Structures are given as structure tokens and as C-alpha cells.
């Protein structure tokens, strides 16, 4: 690890103050628990001139959860979310996803906003300055080539691995963004623009592993909201090399509705596979019948078409894609039969 570069730390206590500081200091970055950002600063990956510690901003620290809806402030700690009785009761997929993030100590530190905006990762990116410079850097920093996909022609394939996003995507969540020009609300799926397609210019709605959030300059996440859908059964599961702490080989959130013996609704979302959390498209076509081989075959096809895992230190990409598919199949089976 390198020594930390010089930066200032400000601790606003109100949202207005946080916005003012953010506007006045374009080179600043919001800081949640620091479990991702401080590591990246120490590795020389980012060098903000100022950090805005969001943990004292009172408006962002509340969870409202009941049988009608869920609203979580960006500075809520992951441990609090995972253990919140009403979230556990009405939004199990969200509580379970929060409980799967890193290890228990990290969850005391990490925040909801930080996990939703978690930087994308890659074995060629999350390394020391020294390591990266020996490898001529990569697209996501200052290099010319995506080392994990050398034929990518300018597209970065770093992987999004936050756990809350897929869980919230299965509930059709919305996210409140706060910034210099006021507030706006987006469907959570529109926050994530890491599509990583070749030959498409990076825009506010289409990016890659490097530009993976549709945040405008100075904007940050204020809160995330979802409506309760009591008819849905939902759960989250994740496979990692070390079960207690590691980033995912693949993570999957499933929400489904069973009517008699019929699969009436199915939503499946993945993390740790693409430059964005992926809410699988085309699952509606698998509904309307029993949970049989036709559904599983269809699910496998959708995973094969839409999931694009890259290699990590431990696992090749094709293995991670198979893990994602198997994990989804197991979770769908468990939720349908329970």
C-alpha cells in the first residue's frame, strides 16, 4: 500500500451543507465507510483533493420500512439495514443482500450509498500503483488496453459487484439523486449504464466499466426506495471463494410469485458478472406454467446471452457464468418450493 496523498476531510451535518461543499469543490468525492474508496486512494487509483464524510448528514441516516414501502438513506450502515426487523420481514431480499456484503466489521462501516456506487473491479485495476505501472496501466485508469479483454477496442470490462443493487432491482426500486441542480429520481436500473458494448460512444445512458453510473457532475445518491410487493417471494444468494469476506464469484437476487402450481412472475438479477448489475431481460416469457425443465432451460439461455463474467485471480470467466446460472436455478427452485 502507498502512503495517502494529501486531502482534506469535511464533515457536513446537513444535506444542504453537503451539497454546498460538493458544488464548491469539484474535485471532491463523497465518503461513506471508506472500505472501497480509502483502499483505492491508497492504491493511487483515485486522488480526490477533498473527501466529504457523509456519515454525519442526518437526513441520509434513516430507514423507513413498513408493509407499504421501503426508503433507505444513503448513509445508513449496512449492518443496520441487514438487521432491521421490518426490512427482514417485508423486504427479505434486501436484508439478505446487505448481510452478504463483505464481513461483519465492514458492514459496521460500509453504507448503502457506498454499496450502490461501489467502484467496478478488475484484477488489472485493483492493484498498487507499482503493479499497474509495470503493466502499462489499463483503460480504467490511464492505459490504452483493457487487459482482461485485450480485443475490447476501448471498452472497459471492470465488474460491478455491489450486492444491494440486484436485490433492489428485483423490487423495481427508484433512486433519489441529489446535486447542484436539485433532486431527481431515476429507476435504479437507469443509474447503472455499464453496458460495455463495442462501437457505442459513452453517453449519459450508455457507458462501460469505467463510466458505469449515470451520475452528473456533483451528484450523489441520497436515498433508494421500493414499493412492497407482498405477493412476491424473494431471496439473495452469493458464491465467493472465501465465504466470510470475499467479493462475489457471482451474486443473484430472485423474486417470484407462485399461483397454485404456476410460476406467475419471475425476476432475476445478478452482480459480480458485468459492468453493471443485470436484471435479466426476458424472464416474463418463462412464466405462466409449472416450474419445469422448460423454465430452467430458458433461464440458462438468458444467462448465457446476458451474463458476461470476466476472469478473476481465482476463476475463469466461463466458470463464473456457470456459477451464476446454477445459483439462480437453485434459488428459483428453493423459493418456488418453500
Amino acid at each position, binding site marked *: 500500500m502507498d502512503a495517502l496523498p*494529501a486531502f482534506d476531510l469535511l464533515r457536513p451535518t446537513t444535506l444542504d451543507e453537503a451539497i454546498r461543499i460538493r458544488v464548491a469543490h469539484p474535485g471532491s468525492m463523497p465518503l461513506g*465507510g471508506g472500505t472501497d474508496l480509502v*483502499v483505492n486512494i491508497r492504491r493511487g487509483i483515485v486522488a480526490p483533493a477533498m473527501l466529504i464524510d457523509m*456519515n454525519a448528514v442526518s437526513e441520509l441516516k434513516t430507514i423507513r420500512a413498513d408493509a407499504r414501502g421501503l426508503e433507505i438513506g444513503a448513509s445508513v450502515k449496512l449492518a443496520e439495514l441487514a438487521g432491521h426487523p421490518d426490512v427482514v420481514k417485508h423486504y427479505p431480499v434486501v436484508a439478505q443482500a446487505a448481510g452478504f456484503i463483505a464481513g461483519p466489521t465492514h458492514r459496521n*462501516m460500509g453504507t448503502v450509498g457506498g454499496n450502490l456506487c461501489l467502484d467496478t473491479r478488475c484484477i488489472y485495476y485493483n492493484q498498487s500503483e507499482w503493479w499497474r505501472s509495470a503493466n502499462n496501466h489499463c483503460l480504467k485508469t490511464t492505459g490504452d488496453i483493457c487487459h482482461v479483454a485485450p480485443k475490447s477496442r476501448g471498452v472497459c470490462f471492470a465488474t460491478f459487484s455491489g450486492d444491494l443493487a440486484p436485490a433492489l432491482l428485483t423490487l423495481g426500486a427508484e433512486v433519489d439523486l441529489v446535486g447542484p441542480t436539485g433532486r431527481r429520481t431515476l429507476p435504479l436500473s437507469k443509474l447503472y449504464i455499464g453496458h460495455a458494448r463495442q462501437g457505442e460512444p459513452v453517453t449519459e445512458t450508455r457507458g462501460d466499466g469505467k463510466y458505469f453510473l449515470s451520475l452528473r457532475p456533483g451528484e450523489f445518491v441520497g436515498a433508494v426506495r421500493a414499493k412492497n410487493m407482498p405477493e412476491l417471494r424473494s431471496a439473495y444468494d452469493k458464491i465467493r471463494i472465501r465465504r466470510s*469476506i470475499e467479493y462475489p464469484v457471482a451474486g443473484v437476487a430472485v423474486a417470484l410469485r407462485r399461483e397454485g402450481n404456476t410460476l406467475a412472475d419471475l425476476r432475476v438479477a445478478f452482480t459480480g458478472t458485468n459492468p453493471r448489475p443485470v436484471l435479466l431481460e426476458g424472464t416474463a416469457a418463462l412464466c405462466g406454467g409449472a416450474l419445469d425443465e422448460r423454465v430452467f432451460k430458458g433461464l440458462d439461455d438468458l444467462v448465457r446471452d446476458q451474463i458476461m463474467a470476466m476472469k478473476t485471480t481465482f476463476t475463469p470467466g466461463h466458470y463464473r457464468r456457470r456459477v451464476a446460472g446454477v445459483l439462480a436455478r437453485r434459488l428459483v427452485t428453493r423459493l418456488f418450493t418453500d
Partner: protein
Amino acid sequence: MARILAFVLNDRARTDAVPGNLLLLDYLREVVGLTGTKTGCDGGECGACTVLIDDKPTLSCLTLAASVEGRRVDTVESLGTDGQLSAVQRGFHEKLGAQCGYCTPGFIMASAGLLRKNPNPSEAEIIAALGSNICRCTGYVKIIEAVQYAAALRAQGIAP
């Protein structure tokens, strides 16, 4: 820019001028001189630097010192009182929960945090609570026994 940091360290109020980029770990070891908290991986992967902030286990290698303003920080040095080991320290000592000992302050603080929240944890709860700590001498079985023993010592009022 240096800022004034006022907080409570090991039950004593302290005020220091700290630069924004000073890590809590470096502050504790280099400024205060409390070297019980260990520098391990330096990247939030090993748990050797675990301290308690408002009774919650926290990684001091990823916490900026200035951000603990107004809070209560406990390091491993806070545990022994009047020459007596705390229950968790006795547990690790008597049940051989330490081998080389480098990860031990972090394990002890994570365990102390668990017992403050949950005085009578099950084995599964102990394993879950120590999930952010790594011991490369692979002594996890003895560590779990140490925490169980510490919980019993506390329950019987033998050690705090």
C-alpha cells in the same frame, strides 16, 4: 489541512490537531503511541487493526482519524484494568487462542464487540462475528473456544 479532533479514547477525553488524510490506525500507533493495534494488510482484508468505535468493531486502517470526532474509541489497551486481564484476554490466553499473536488484538476487539452486544453467543454467532478477521496460524478452533470461555467468565462475574 489539520483539523481539531476531540473524542474519547479508552475512556479518556483527548484533543489533537490531525490532518485530513491521517488514518485512525496511524494516529493510534504513531501519534498516541498505542501500538497494541496492529497494521496487517493495510487494505481492510485481515482485521488485525480492528478497534471499537461506539462499541462496534471497525477497521482502523480504513477509518480517517478526523471522522471519529465526538465518538468513543476503544483499543486493546483499554481492556485490562488494575492489572487484571479482561474476560476476552483471559480466554485467548488460557484457551491458547493466540499462536504468533499478530492477529490477536484484532480478534480480541472483534470478540469484545460481540460480547458487549450479545453476552451469550452461539458458536455460529461467534464464527459470523469474527468473519472479518484472518489468522494465518489457522487457530480458529481455539479462538472460538476462547470466546466461549470469555462469555462464561463474564456470565459468572469472574472477569469483566
